[in-house]
């Protein structure tokens, strides 16, 4: 009846896990009780659970990401605490198996349930607004994506309560992750969490390739797209091309574990190296899936806060495309030590290094964008500077590891761990946080508090160095990754320092949540009435904050790369049409949460081999889609009068804020002057498509 699920699955020998469950269930119950008490269930259902609005979907993604940021960080802190409390003559406080669950959980959650949802959330919020669209191409598919991510995240969460999570590392190397060596439910939880979130990500990729290629406002040619849109286009293409490799690898591994096939086992002709190749065939592009949009965010931030055009836009576009293309040709560098001949290793080594060329060009382009700019030190700009200086170190260690001869020595050491944190934290995490502060007022209509934001920034930056420079040292000292105990006093010294770094990062995370709370408390004071709090250059800043459901009352016309800045400079921003038109928008639907709930139950049933339930879920999903396909009324109309009323209110706010007076300054500000005040002829304008 219940497959392999027995009461034993609820038995946890570690008090720490019991305590974690009490916290998790307690928090869950408290949230449910509060929602019931304040009668918010109806509101949640109507406005959030059934929504297909890309802005709200983006917010849900980011909420998921912040929850998993906390969980992933707690895992990291526990790993640091274990390694700092182990050492010569000390065993620390964790069992080996629990320690393995923690480093596996940390990697899995940070990649799949923190970085990816955060990124997709920002994509959802910004892309349609940047390209002047009213929604993504497939709004319902978008809703299915977000709730599938939530379902996959819930599977990870429930593994804490029922059974256990994988101990095979976030990459799940075979044959260790096979049934013979990992018989418990952990690897199955890991497989289905990744599989469901992978499907969600693939759908997102499809959605955004289509949206960016088909839904741009008139006049926005490819080479007029904002850099963030470009990077998201490249990332979406990478997603669509690379995720099937992961899906296939996980599907075959699931068959090995549940049906008894031998794709990746040690015996009967199974090939353990095939899994590792397939995993990294996805895994390496995934690194660029994570980092390219962050690069796009840095491009937006640098231009906005330097009050300047992006230097080398064309170079940037080609560099982004080059990185995306090359990222498929480097996967072997994850396992130089698996016995390939030097020819193969050399080829993949050089391919890896070649990626450093376009990456270097991008870095220099940002730096030269600052040149002769007027840099305002708002939070996103701080994150960008922190990124530039820190990321280059990670790039250096990356080039070092790209050389097979050197990697033979550093592979699987903490040097490697330090390297990829040194690219992912400044590259992806700082980029996501910069984007979070940058677009927050657009979504919520109020700015985030600067003071707490600065605390958060310095916590992250200082904490990063204190936590990861020791790991570089430890790697050079020959310490392998993933050790629960050790007896070298030198390692102990540096691991204690690394643990102090984790505490400093913890302060940064605390400050971020404080910042959100304080900003919400003072939201009247921080309100963004004009929709353009930063002096923005792209279309999302031309509409109110928060934007109306339909985003653009009139679809804008684009004449330049920095479309909105061009409107401001040439005095045609905020122009109103002679008459507004009715707007058709997609209706809310519960289909997405139904499918996600069924997927969650399916994953849970598969993990515990409750086959009848898994079968029912598949049938239920198919039935739900069929029922939905008979629904012909999927759109509703926002009447022109309502749109006009919204716009009237917006323009009153603009008047009150003296925006139109200020526009004259912007026009002046847009002129190029030497320190002596001499006017410089804007020779470059003609080539950038600004009409005379």
């Amino acid at each position, binding site marked *: 009846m219940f497959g392999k699920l027995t009461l034993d699955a609820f038995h946890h020998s570690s008090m720490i896990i019991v305590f974690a469950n009490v916290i998790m269930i307690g928090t869950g119950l408290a949230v449910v009780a509060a929602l019931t008490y304040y009668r918010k269930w109806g509101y949640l259902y109507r406005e959030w659970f059934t929504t297909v609005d890309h802005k709200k979907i983006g917010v849900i993604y980011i909420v998921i990401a912040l929850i998993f940021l906390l969980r992933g960080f707690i895992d990291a802190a526990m790993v640091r605490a274990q390694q700092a409390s182990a050492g010569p003559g000390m065993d620390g406080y964790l069992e080996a198996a629990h320690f393995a669950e923690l480093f596996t959980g940390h990697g899995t959650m940070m990649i799949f349930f923190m970085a990816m949802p955060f990124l997709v959330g920002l994509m959802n919020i910004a892309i349609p607004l940047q390209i002047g669209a009213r929604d993504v191409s497939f709004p319902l598919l978008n809703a299915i994506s977000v709730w599938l991510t939530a379902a996959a995240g819930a599977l990870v969460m429930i593994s804490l309560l029922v059974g256990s999570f994988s101990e095979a590392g976030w990459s799940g190397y075979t044959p260790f992750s096979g049934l013979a060596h990992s018989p418990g439910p952990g690897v199955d939880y890991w497989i289905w969490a990744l599989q469901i979130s992978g499907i969600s990500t693939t759908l997102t990729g499809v959605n955004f390739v289509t949206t960016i290629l088909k839904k741009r406002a008139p006049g926005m040619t490819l080479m007029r797209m904002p850099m963030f849109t470009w990077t998201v286009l490249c990332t979406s293409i990478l997603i669509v091309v690379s995720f099937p490799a992961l899906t296939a690898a996980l599907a075959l591994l699931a068959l090995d574990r549940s049906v008894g096939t031998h794709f990746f086992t040690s*015996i009967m002709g199974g090939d353990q190296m095939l899994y590792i190749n397939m995993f990294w065939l996805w895994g390496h592009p995934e690194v660029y899936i994570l980092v390219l949009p962050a690069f796009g965010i840095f491009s937006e931030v640098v231009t906005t806060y330097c009050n300047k055009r992006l230097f080398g836009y064309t170079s940037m576009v080609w560099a982004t495309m080059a990185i995306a293309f090359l990222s498929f040709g480097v996967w072997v560098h994850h396992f130089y030590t698996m016995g390939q001949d030097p020819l193969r290793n050399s080829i993949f080594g050089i391919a890896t290094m070649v990626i450093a060329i376009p990456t270097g060009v991008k870095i220099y382009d940002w730096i030269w964008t600052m040149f002769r700019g*007027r840099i305002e030190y708002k939070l996103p700009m701080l994150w960008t500077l922190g990124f530039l200086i820190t990321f280059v170190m990670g790039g250096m260690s990356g080039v070092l590891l790209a050389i097979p001869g050197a990697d033979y020595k550093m592979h699987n050491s903490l040097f490697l761990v330090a390297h990829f944190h040194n690219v992912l934290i400044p590259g992806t995490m700082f980029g996501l946080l910069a984007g979070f502060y940058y677009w927050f007022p657009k979504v919520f209509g109020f700015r985030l508090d600067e003071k707490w934001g600065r605390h958060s920034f310095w916590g992250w930056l200082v904490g990063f160095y204190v936590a990861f420079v020791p790991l570089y040292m430890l790697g050079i*000292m020959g310490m392998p990754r*993933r050790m629960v105990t050790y007896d070298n006093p030198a390692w102990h010294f540096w691991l204690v320092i690394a643990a102090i770094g984790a505490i400093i990062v913890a302060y940064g995370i605390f400050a971020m949540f404080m910042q959100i709370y304080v900003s919400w408390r003072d939201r009247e004071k921080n309100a963004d009435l004009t929709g353009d709090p930063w002096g923005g250059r792209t279309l999302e800043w031309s509409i109110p904050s928060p934007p109306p459901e339909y985003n653009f009352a009139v679809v804008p016309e684009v004449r330049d790369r920095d479309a909105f800045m061009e409107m401001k400079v040439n005095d045609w921003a905020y122009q109103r049409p002679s008459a507004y038109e009715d707007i058709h928008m997609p209706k809310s639907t519960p289909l997405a949460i139904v499918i996600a709930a069924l997927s969650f139950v399916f994953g849970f049933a598969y993990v515990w081999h409750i086959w009848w339930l898994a079968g029912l879920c598949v049938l239920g999903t198919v039935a739900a889609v069929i029922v939905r396909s008979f629904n012909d009324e999927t759109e509703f109309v926002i009447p022109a009068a309502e749109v006009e009323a919204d716009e009237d209110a917006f323009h009153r706010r603009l008047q009150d804020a003296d925006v139109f007076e200020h526009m004259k300054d912007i026009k002046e500000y847009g002129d190029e002057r030497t320190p002596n005040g001499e006017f410089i002829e804007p020779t470059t304008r003609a080539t950038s498509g600004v009409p005379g």
Partner: protein
Amino acid sequence: MRRLRVPLIVALPLLLGGCSAQWFIDTFYLNELVTFFTAGPVAAYQRNVMLFTFMVMLFVLVPVVGFTLWFAWHYRANNKKNTYTPNWHHSNLLEAFLWGGPIAIILVLALVTVVSTYDLDPYKPIEAENDPIRVQAIAMDWKWLFIYPDYGVASVNEMAMPVDTPLQIDLTSASVMNGFMIPRLGSQVMAMSGMRTRLHLMADEKGEFFGKNYQYSGDGFADQRFTAESLSQADFDGWIDKARSSGQPLDLSAYRSLVEPSRNVDPILYSSVPDGLFGYVMHRFQVGDGKIPLDAVPSDLTADDIAQHGHAH
């Protein structure tokens, strides 16, 4: 004076410490940076590659950090004396440098990559005056079995080698994937079930070196380490004699109990070892379910026969 006080407070301990380099070394355990304190030609070569690459990469690091800090400070918004060119966004000359610089650096490093990767190929024999010694290393849960086929002895979690003599180490696994490395000697190579990989190492000084599995392999992973002893030829011969006279052969029953998972295994020396054990360990994964009895090994099955298949992967 007031301005000077803070830097002095920071600098004082540094100055005092600077009086004795030993203080730094002791406090930060700098003598444990084994990647720099090598004991063999492979590791020394790797250290040189890393230091050279690091030097070349400084041509990237210094300008990036320097320009970033300079521009960030100089072009701050409240410094109104600066030239401000909000529409300047392109310069062919500058962009040629921005692409050309990284390309030049990567060209140099690509050359380093090819040369060093061929030189450091783990399969390439090391040229030395002494003839190489063969070692067969089998990764188990969670210990290492070392077989010396030339001497007919074996050991667990302890290996010995004569100084200045190349080792030809064949690797396989009786369990999951393992990564074999002795950091002070150099390269890591994976040990995988049903396959043979190969690694050549040499110690050019005497000493006891830390060796370990570097690929996570389960609960006993952290304890799965061994000692690699580099000895004079006479001491090495003594070590072999000690093994031969240990009176403990690695026979069928000893092997069967050894291969069961165990943690924190103390070093063991075996006086004898069946011919073809290494090949058998690989073979049992290749042909079936891993349950063939040891005595079913064809005596003519050698590691090299099976290696044909293992290496082809």
